[in-house]
């Protein structure tokens, strides 16, 4: 039975708009929809350049269109997503606004699909509080007259130059079988790797394949790895703040060469080892969570895996080997 780990990534963006898109967005706060002249055409939404010739379009040639227009084609969205403009079923439509040469894509809110047809006249329903975003128009609604939803807080005080954009996408990742074997092994305080049947290199961390020979490594390639090793290299990170960074103090990630093998465990957390005492040649041993602890799969991303929570000083004297530091992977 395949297990899955959900991983929602919220992508926050701040977009600068430039003169043409900026003017379009500013116009929306004023309940005006602007197009731009290109030859004898009026393009809506406006572009900064003519796609056919590459010629620059003059921001001074922006003209107001609509507010009402005609539906040219449409599709029905019976089950809107969280990010769709409306929470109830609606239409996406190409709407030719009066005075425009090109149709605009937007939502049309008619309640039911049989209330909509090609040629229908629609007008914008404006948001009361507008920020300079295509969503300042909640949707187009049947009729000739624009309407405002709720109290009208008026146009933006200054020209709109920036726009927030939040994209949220959820990924559902199947857990590779090799990682489940690693996790189960860690519950018994075992560290397992896979030995490539061709080149005999041993890989750690559940790679599932040998990049040299490009062959997959299955359960029959599992081998037990030792629980002691030597730090070959490390990185001390002084955290800078970004979404998802939970550390605030400098922390270490170490590379551990397992005894009697050629195997490096990269980016391992350390336990009871202060940042100032992390050094090449330091001897360490595996540190384990109690067997009954619940292990969060997300924690697997920290470098160690399952019940292996990191590496603790073993108290043995340091290893003096000038080549150790070269062992990063």
């Amino acid at each position: 039975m395949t297990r899955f780990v959900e991983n929602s990534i919220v992508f926050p963006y701040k977009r600068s708009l430039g003169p043409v898109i900026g003017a379009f967005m500013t116009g929306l706060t004023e309940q005006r929809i602007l197009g731009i002249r290109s030859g004898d055409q009026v393009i809506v939404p406006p572009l900064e350049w003519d796609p056919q010739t590459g010629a620059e379009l003059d921001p001074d040639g922006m003209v107001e269109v609509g507010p009402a227009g005609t539906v040219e084609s449409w599709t029905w969205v019976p089950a809107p997503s969280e990010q769709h403009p409306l929470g109830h079923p609606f239409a996406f439509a190409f709407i030719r606004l009066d005075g425009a040469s090109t149709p605009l894509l937007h939502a049309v809110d008619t309640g039911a699909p049989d209330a909509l047809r090609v040629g229908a006249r629609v007008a914008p329903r404006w948001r009361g509080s507008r920020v300079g975003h295509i969503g300042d128009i909640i949707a187009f609604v049947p009729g000739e007259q624009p309407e405002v939803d709720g109290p009208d807080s008026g146009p933006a005080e200054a020209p709109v130059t920036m726009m927030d954009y939040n994209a949220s996408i959820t990924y559902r990742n199947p857990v590779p079988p090799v990682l489940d074997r690693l996790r189960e092994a860690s519950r018994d305080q075992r560290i397992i790797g896979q030995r490539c049947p061709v080149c005999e290199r041993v890989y750690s961390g559940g790679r599932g394949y040998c990049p040299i020979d490009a062959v997959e490594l299955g359960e029959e390639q599992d081998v037990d790895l030792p629980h002691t090793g030597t730090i070959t290299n490390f990185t001390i990170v002084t955290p800078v703040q970004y979404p998802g960074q939970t550390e605030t103090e400098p922390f270490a990630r170490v590379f551990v060469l397992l005894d009697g093998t050629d195997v490096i465990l990269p980016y391992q957390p350390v336990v009871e080892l202060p940042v100032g005492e992390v050094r090449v040649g330091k001897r360490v041993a595996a540190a384990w969570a109690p067997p009954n602890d619940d292990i969060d799969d997300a924690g697997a991303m920290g470098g160690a895996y399952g019940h292996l929570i990191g590496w603790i000083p073993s108290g043995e004297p340091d290893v003096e080997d000038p080549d150790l530091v070269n062992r990063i992977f």
Partner: protein
Amino acid sequence: MGAERTAVIGVGQTRHVSARHDVSIAGLVREAAQEALDDAGLDWGDIDAVVIGKAPDMFEGVVMPELYLADALGASGKPMIRVHTAGSVGGSTAIVAAKLVMAGIHERVLTVAFEKQSESNATWGLSVAMPFQAPLVAGAGGYFAPIIRAYIRRSGAPDYIGHLVSVKDRLNALRNPKAQLHLPDIDLKTVQESMLLWAPLRLLDVCPSSDGAMAMVIGSEQAAAAAPGPVAWIHGTAMRSEPTMFAGRDQVNPQAGKDCAADVYAQAGITNPREDFDCAEVYVPFSWYEPMWLENLGFCPEGDGWKLTEAGATAFDGDIPWNPSGGVLSSNPIGASGMIRFGEVAQQVRERAGDFQVPLKTGKALGHAYGGGSQFFSMWVVGNTKPES
């Protein structure tokens, strides 16, 4: 069957800044492209094909943004290709564009590379937690610091060598009006006193995060003859890749980099890079990568890279200037950084580098980019004379 002679006939770039809040994404890209067209004396209609490069789409949150950029780049009805080879992408993109001309398929190809990192947070963009993968732990510096430590131990380099590069490249940037960082007061002490981010890397040893774009027009022999100004002939191009991690991989001095350099030198007739080039623009996002790449690229024997840096050989007035433009340490719109290297050496051999022009003796220069875990390499050699074949 040899390739067609091919040249850079126009170069353009934006000024690189931490945030270009006055333009859209298309506006940024377009600015560099327009300058390259103007430089080549061409209009949008003269372009046969467009090749676009950039690093991960997550930086701007537009999937395959070339599709949206087609409108701004006059690409309607033309072939358009999007390249993505991690940090080496700017160089790879230029090479893909050059090959379209070398193959005799097109006469004039516009190539652009960009990144608008201010749209998001680059450190975050690179550190998105991927399930079941070793994380980069807080940005690329966390990945590269251990490799730098290995180099220092291996070569016996004094600990200030990296800081010398940080100072040198920032002083070079003062000559380059398009560079992002202009730090006139920088010296060894300022670098040594800057915040320790990923030991041994300090804040000033690390590249900035930039909005910027680079563009070139690459043309055939015929297009070069019609160009209004001098051109930079392409004497060789090469790309090499190797896997990220396996036991025995040398991350400090990667084989792919050595193979890539050997390939491009053979094409360009380079036997002693330190003497045969007038300068090099090499991808150095962390200061220590200058001595490391000096060795990897064969400018000196292994272990001696830091000695060249310390002796000032790579300084603006040294015998082999590296990164006279200020390099990645002074401007880093990630997807464009490789193409900036490639374009800046073209400008050098065209004698168009302005205040950071180096004297031309051999008339040849090396452009270099790398990416991923020091595993993707792209390089080209340009010269002021037409290649023999």
